[in-house]
C-alpha cells in the first residue's frame, strides 16, 4: 500500500495483530473470507474436512490486523479472530 504522505504519529501508533483460528469442520468453502480479508491472510487448503470441503487456513497469519471481518462474514461460524498482545507478534513487518 502506498501513502502520499507520512502520518505524523506513524512511529507511535502500531496496528493491532490478531490470531486467526479456523474451526475447520464448520467450513463450507464459500470463500467469502478469502475474498474480503483486507490483508489476504486466508487461503483454501488442500485437505478435506468432515463435510468434504477444502477448509480455509490462515496462509499469512502474521499479516492479520485483527479487523475481524472474516469472523463476521463467515456464514458458518467457523472463524475466530483473537487479538494478540504486542510481545506475541512475530515479525514486525507490518510497520515497514
Amino acid at each position, binding site marked *: 500500500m502506498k501513502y502520499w504522505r507520512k502520518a505524523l504519529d506513524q512511529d507511535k501508533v502500531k496496528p493491532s495483530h490478531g*490470531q*486467526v*483460528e*479456523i*474451526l*475447520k*469442520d*464448520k467450513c*463450507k*468453502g*464459500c*470463500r*467469502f473470507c478469502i*475474498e*474480503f480479508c483486507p490483508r489476504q491472510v486466508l487461503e483454501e*487448503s488442500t*485437505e478435506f474436512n*468432515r463435510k468434504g*470441503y477444502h*477448509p480455509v*487456513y*490462515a496462509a499469512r*497469519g502474521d499479516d492479520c490486523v485483527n479487523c475481524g*471481518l472474516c*469472523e*463476521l*462474514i*463467515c*456464514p*458458518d*461460524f*467457523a472463524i*475466530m479472530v483473537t487479538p494478540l498482545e504486542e510481545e506475541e507478534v512475530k515479525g514486525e513487518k507490518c510497520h515497514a
Partner: protein
Amino acid sequence: MNLKGSDEKHYIDKYLREDRMPHIWCPGCGLGSILHCFLSGLIKTGISMDKVVVVSGIGCTGRVAGYLKLDSFHTTHGRAIPFATGLKLANPKLKVVVFSGDGDLIAIGGNHLIHAARRNIDMTVICVNNFNYGMTGGQLGPTTPLTARTTTSPIGNYERPFNVPYLAAASGAVYVARWTSMHVRRLEQTITEGLLKRGFSFIEVISPCPTVYGRMNRQPTGLDQLRYYRENSVIRHGADPKEVDIDLNGKIVVGKFIDIERPTYSDLLDEVVQKAFEPELPKPDTSKKRATVAGSTPK
C-alpha cells in the same frame, strides 16, 4: 496450519443452539453472515439476552429463530409481525425482533408489515431479501427484479417488484436502512442502532441465494453475488427511499435512509389512558348485593 476440529467452540456458540448446528443454509448463502452480524450487533447494545425475543415466519430466513439461544418463535408464514405485536404490547419490557424473509414479510405478510409500521409498534424488523422464495425452490417473489428468471418466471419476470425501504418508510417506520450481506461491519452497526431505536425500525439486508436465484441469473455462487454487491453498491445515507429501487444486476443504493422520531403505539395509548382515567384502579366493590349464582364457578 492453525486449523481446529469441530469440537472447538466459537465464542458466539453460547448464543446459538449448538445441538441444532450445523444450520441448513447452503454454502454461499448470506444468512449465516447476517445472523452473526445480528448477534454481534445485539451484544453491543448491552440489552439483557433474557429480554430479547426473536420471532420468525416461514422460509430460509424463518429458520433463524430456531438457531438462536434466546426466547424464539417460529410462527406461520407471514405472521411473525402480528405475533410479535402481541408479545410486545402484552409485555413492553421485551425487546422484540422480527427476523424473516422478503416473501414472508412483503408478500404474504405485507399487510401486517404496513400496519405495524403505521402503528409504530416498538420492534425491530430485519428483512432478508434474496429476491426469491428460496426454500420452496426459487419462485418469483414480491421483490424479484423485472426480467429476472425464477422457477415461476422462467422466461423472465414481468411483475414490478416492491421497493422495500420505500414501502416501510411510507407506512411510517421511524428507522429504515438497507445493506447487503457483504457490508458486515455497517450492518452490525445498523443492527445495534436499530435495536436501540424506539419505535418501528426496519432493516433490509440484500443477501445471496446462489442455489436458485443466483444460478438462474448468472451469479451461480454466493461469492459471485457478493462481488456484484461490492461493485454495484452505492452508499447514500439519507437517500430518498423513493429512489432506491433495484433493477436486475443494477446499482444497489445502501445506507440509512430514515431516522426520525414519532410517538410509539404505547406512548399514544398511555397518553390517552392518562387523560381519560384517574390514576388509581379501585378495589373490587363488594358492598353491592352479593350475588351467588348456581354454576357461576366452573369446575
